C-alpha cells in the first residue's frame, strides 16, 4: 500500500493493517505487558523455590493465625475479581454509574487487601524477620519472603492507583469501556499471581 493510499484512505484496501488477533491495540498492549510481568513473577517465585529447596534449615513459621489471615485476604481478592468483572459488564453496557460503582467497590476491597498485607508484614517484622535475618533459620528467608510478597503488594498498589484514575476518568467521560476492561485484565492478573503466592510461599511452610 502506497503512502497516498494511506493518506486518502484508499477505496480498495484498508488504510491500516487489521489489528492482530482482532483486539484493540490498547488491549494487545496490556496482554503483552502481562506476559512480560509473568516473567518477573515467575523469576521471583522460582528464585524463592530455588532458595527454599537448596537450604536445609528453611524456616516454617506460619501458624494458624497467619493462614486464616491469608485465607481472608484470598477471599477479599477473589471477590474483588468477580466485582471487577461486573464493572466491565456495566461499562460494556454503557452504564457509567454502575461501572464506576463496581470499580470503586473493587478499589475498596483492594485497599483492604493491601492493609491486611501490610499488617502481615508488620507481624513478621515484629517477630524479628528482616531481609537478612530471622529467629528461625537461614537469613535468606526474609529476603525471599519480602521480595515475592513485596512484588505482589507493589502491583496491588499500582493497580489501585490505576483503578482510581481510570474509574474517575470513566465517570467523567474521559475514558471508555476499553480502559475499564484493561484495568480488569491487570487486576485479574494480580489475583492469579496471588493464587500461586498463597500455596508456594505460605502453605508450603506451615509450622508442623
Amino acid at each position, binding site marked *: 500500500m502506497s503512502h497516498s493510499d494511506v493518506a486518502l484512505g484508499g477505496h480498495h484496501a484498508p488504510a491500516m493493517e487489521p489489528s492482530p*488477533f482482532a483486539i484493540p491495540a490498547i488491549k494487545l498492549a496490556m496482554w503483552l505487558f502481562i*506476559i512480560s510481568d509473568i516473567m518477573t513473577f515467575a523469576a521471583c517465585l522460582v528464585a524463592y523455590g530455588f532458595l527454599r529447596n537448596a537450604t536445609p534449615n528453611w524456616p516454617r513459621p506460619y501458624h494458624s493465625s497467619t493462614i486464616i489471615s491469608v485465607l481472608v485476604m484470598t477471599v477479599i481478592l477473589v471477590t474483588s475479581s*468477580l466485582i471487577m468483572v461486573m464493572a466491565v459488564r456495566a461499562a460494556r453496557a454503557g452504564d457509567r454509574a454502575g461501572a464506576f460503582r463496581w470499580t470503586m467497590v473493587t478499589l475498596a476491597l483492594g485497599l483492604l487487601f493491601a492493609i491486611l498485607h501490610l499488617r502481615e508484614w508488620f507481624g513478621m517484622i515484629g517477630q524479628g524477620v528482616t531481609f537478612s535475618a530471622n529467629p528461625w533459620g537461614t537469613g535468606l528467608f526474609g529476603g525471599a519472603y519480602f521480595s515475592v510478597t513485596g512484588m505482589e503488594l507493589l502491583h496491588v498498589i499500582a493497580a489501585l492507583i490505576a483503578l482510581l484514575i481510570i474509574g474517575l476518568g470513566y465517570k467523567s467521560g474521559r475514558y471508555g469501556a476499553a480502559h475499564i476492561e484493561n484495568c480488569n485484565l491487570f487486576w485479574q492478573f494480580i489475583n*492469579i499471581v496471588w493464587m500461586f503466592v498463597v500455596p508456594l510461599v505460605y502453605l508450603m511452610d506451615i509450622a508442623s
Partner: protein
Amino acid sequence: MSTAGEQGGLGKYIVVYLCMLAITGIEVVIASSNPGGAHLLPMMLILAFTGALLGVLFFMGLAAEKRSLILFVAVFTLFVLATINYGWTDSFRVLMGAPYAK
C-alpha cells in the same frame, strides 16, 4: 472479555468464583493435614494452575477471544515458565553440597 462473553448472565462467573475459593480451601486442607509432605509441591502446583486457568479463561475473558490470541498467550507463557525452570538441577546440587564442575 469480549462482547461474546457479555451475552450470558453472571452465573458462569459466580461458578468460577466459587471454584477459585474452593481450590484455595482444598489447598489449605491438604497443606494443614500434611505439613512439609513429600508430594505437597506437585499438588499445590496443580491446584494453583487450575485456579489460574479459570481466572485467565473467564475473569480475563481469554476463553471468549479469538483462538489465535489464546494460542499466542499460551505459547509465550508456557515457554517462559518452562525455560525459567532450567535452574532446578543446580538447586539440588547446592542442597547436596556437590562442588561446581571443573
